[in-house]
């Protein structure tokens, strides 16, 4: 092979850069920032992998993808096999390759990362997912039970099958919420032969992947493709259906569903509880991002939903949601975008890559600053009164606690404020099912496999853990799918 010499352990190959849209270009559009590896780049990056005997990377991945093997396939240019390998553990590789906080997961434990930069596992995963072109559609195949289906899938090495006409085992399972947890669980159950109905409140499936994470970081086409894949496994998706309103959980049982999985996410936006927060021009990040992503306000008036555009936008918070809001504001034409965060950069929970992207694009980072009051004029926001903070001892999260500095109050001019300080569990469903136990924060309490206090009802993803990550939600969906299978087969709760 031409690049053979690169494989020798002594020679250090630098981590392969991914090509990106230039910052000054990309803030004028909503297209994806990262353009993805070419074949050559992917192969080159795969050669950096040490093919460790004990691949630590796998331990770092919450769903334990066989990373070493899929990278080996990429190295051999067997890209479809690489994807197949990933899909054994992960139904949404195109999504995870893009949005996983790899620096805290697979790449954190990568052995190469001890002395050098870790293998770009996420980018390789994304490459494999994007490479897939010739989908393997299998139509008109009519097996009788799940074992037959599974054997067929194995025998034919099907990874992306369109097995529309499979006759399922006729046991109905209901999944509530079409985010990563719900989609994963539905897909897994369908593969086992269950007749899955996935109920979604909004008019579009994907959860945070469609209403929260922006197009420039996760193109909606990728989400749609992954949803189509889950549908092709036979999952029926019922949109515009709010469990707790349109039907209750007990009604689902009386309709013949044998088990229910609650995957309704953390959709309730928190506000600061300070004066002036209901002034015009103050948005929750959920509203700001939903208007732009789900409702396509950036295409207004071709699309009907409006969004306020303004010169100065201030975003409050330091996580992915805050970063996404800030970068969205730039793309909507803001001249100045400030990210106001009460701790320092080291404590920011956002993905490192997105912090870097945000800075390149010109987001002004205002660290160690906490809002006290929003000041308005004629009903519209004008200024934020803030106080400077300093870092004290670590708190229960292990991050250093921010403490106010006396007499450091000051005012920051702004036209729009986006509040991105976290989300809690939405109570619409749980209010109508008082027999499901909640913790103090309103999250559903479950055991290790997702069983709630109500027989036959499981829960997982953000509704259980609080706002977390895509891959953890998917991991929960998978564990629950197996637990549901066992519960239905044994009847044991």
């Amino acid at each position, binding site marked *: 092979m031409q690049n053979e010499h690169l494989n020798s352990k002594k020679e250090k190959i630098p981590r392969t850069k991914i090509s990106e849209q230039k910052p000054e270009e990309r803030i004028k559009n909503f297209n994806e920032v990262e353009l993805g590896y070419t074949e050559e780049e992917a192969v080159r990056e795969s050669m950096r992998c040490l093919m460790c005997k004990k691949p630590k990377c796998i331990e770092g991945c919450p769903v334990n993808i066989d990373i070493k093997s899929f990278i080996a396939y990429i190295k051999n240019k067997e890209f479809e096999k690489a994807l197949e390998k990933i899909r054994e553990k992960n139904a949404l590789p195109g999504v995870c390759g893009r949005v996983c906080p790899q620096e805290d997961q697979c790449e954190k434990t990568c052995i190469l990362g001890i002395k050098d930069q870790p293998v770009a596992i996420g980018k390789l995963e994304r490459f494999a997912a994007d490479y897939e072109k010739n989908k393997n559609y299998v139509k008109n195949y009519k097996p009788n039970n799940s074992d037959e289906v599974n054997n067929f899938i194995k025998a034919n090495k099907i990874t992306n099958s369109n097995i529309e006409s499979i006759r399922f085992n006729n046991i109905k399972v209901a999944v509530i919420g079409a985010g990563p947890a719900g989609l994963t669980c539905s897909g897994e159950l369908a593969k086992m032969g269950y007749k899955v109905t996935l109920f979604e409140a909004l008019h579009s499936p994907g959860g945070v992947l469609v209403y929260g994470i922006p197009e420039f970081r996760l193109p909606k086409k990728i989400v749609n493709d992954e949803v189509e894949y889950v549908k092709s496994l036979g999952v029926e998706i019922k949109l515009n259906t709010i469990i707790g309103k349109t039907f209750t959980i007990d009604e689902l049982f009386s309709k013949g569903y044998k088990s229910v999985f609650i995957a309704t996410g953390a959709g309730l936006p928190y506000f600061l509880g300070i004066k002036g927060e209901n002034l015009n021009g103050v948005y929750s990040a959920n509203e700001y991002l939903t208007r732009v992503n789900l409702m396509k306000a950036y295409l207004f008036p071709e699309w009907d939903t*409006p969004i306020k555009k303004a010169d100065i936008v201030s975003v409050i918070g330091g996580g992915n949601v805050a970063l996404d809001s800030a970068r969205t504001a730039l793309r909507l034409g803001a001249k100045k975008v400030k990210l106001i965060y009460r701790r320092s950069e080291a404590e920011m929970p956002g993905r490192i890559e997105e912090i870097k992207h945000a800075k390149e694009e010109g987001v002004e980072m205002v660290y160690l600053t906490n809002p006290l009051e929003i000041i308005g004029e004629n009903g519209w926001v004008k200024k934020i009164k803030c106080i400077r903070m300093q870092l004290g001892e670590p708190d229960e999260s292990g991050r250093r606690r921010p403490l106010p500095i006396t007499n450091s109050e000051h005012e920051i001019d702004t036209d729009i404020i986006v509040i991105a300080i976290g989300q809690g569990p939405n109570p619409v469903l749980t209010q109508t099912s008082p027999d499901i136990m909640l913790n103090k924060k309103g999250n559903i309490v479950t055991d290790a496999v997702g069983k709630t206090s109500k027989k036959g009802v499981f829960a997982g993803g953000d509704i259980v853990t609080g706002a977390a990550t895509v891959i953890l939600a998917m991991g929960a969906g998978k564990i629950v799918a197996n637990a549901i299978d066992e519960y239905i087969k044994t009847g044991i709760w």
Partner: protein
Amino acid sequence: MVLENQIINKYNLTKEIVSFEVFSPTIANKAKAGQFVIVRASSNGERIPLTIADFNSTRGYINLTILKRGKSTNQLGLMEPGQLLNDIVGPLGKPSEIEKFGNVVVIGGGVGIAPILPIIKSLHYEDNYIISVLGAKSAEGLIFTKEIKQYSNEFHICTDDGSLGFKGFVSEFLLNYLKKDNKKINRVIAIGPALMMKAVCSITKNFNIKTIVSLNPIMVDGTGMCGSCRVEVANQTKFACVDGPEFDGHQVDFDLLISRLNIYCNEEDIALKKFMENHKCKMNI
């Protein structure tokens, strides 16, 4: 065969108000007075809240009565029986509190007359004495008068121009009525423009009569996910879509509601103008 979300019947009630019967059996089966749905007319449409003005679970339809104001409601106004609404989700919000209160004044203003119809019906079945007061700019603007009269013990009409009934606002009528003080009023329910509800509340406060209003802030999801619909009630922030839409009117900050209703004025103008240009021939304006 009738399809889910299909418009079964259309009634042009006034020049500005249309009423649709839409086939939506699941929602019709669940709906209660006071609840609403979120509708998208087309695949790139916005999500707009509309009260379930009536519902029939046997025939599986809900009634949506719509005042044509901006782009979305005008677009809906052009739809015809047989066509499908892109999305309908519901029923949303808390149902009206219905019990035997005694003497209840129910006020509907403009398109707000539509949502009082199911409330009056439910109150009627609980044996309340119903004094209904309907208001509109002029006689041609009144809707559902026959249906509402049928369930009312007293029936009053107010028009701004005096073309029918009392000449003046419903709030003025109410003040006169309460001053006469011939019977104890146990509760007032008022639905209509924010200014009307505000005026009604400032009167009933003086008479110490509990007053329920239905708030209509701008919404997106309608499920408590976005906070667009924030209102202040008793100095606390509430999400009208899940905590309401009905609230104790004496506690509501109406000025905030009115201010927030104007957030997108400029954008709404742009959208409406563009729409009108494309539909000039059909809209005869």
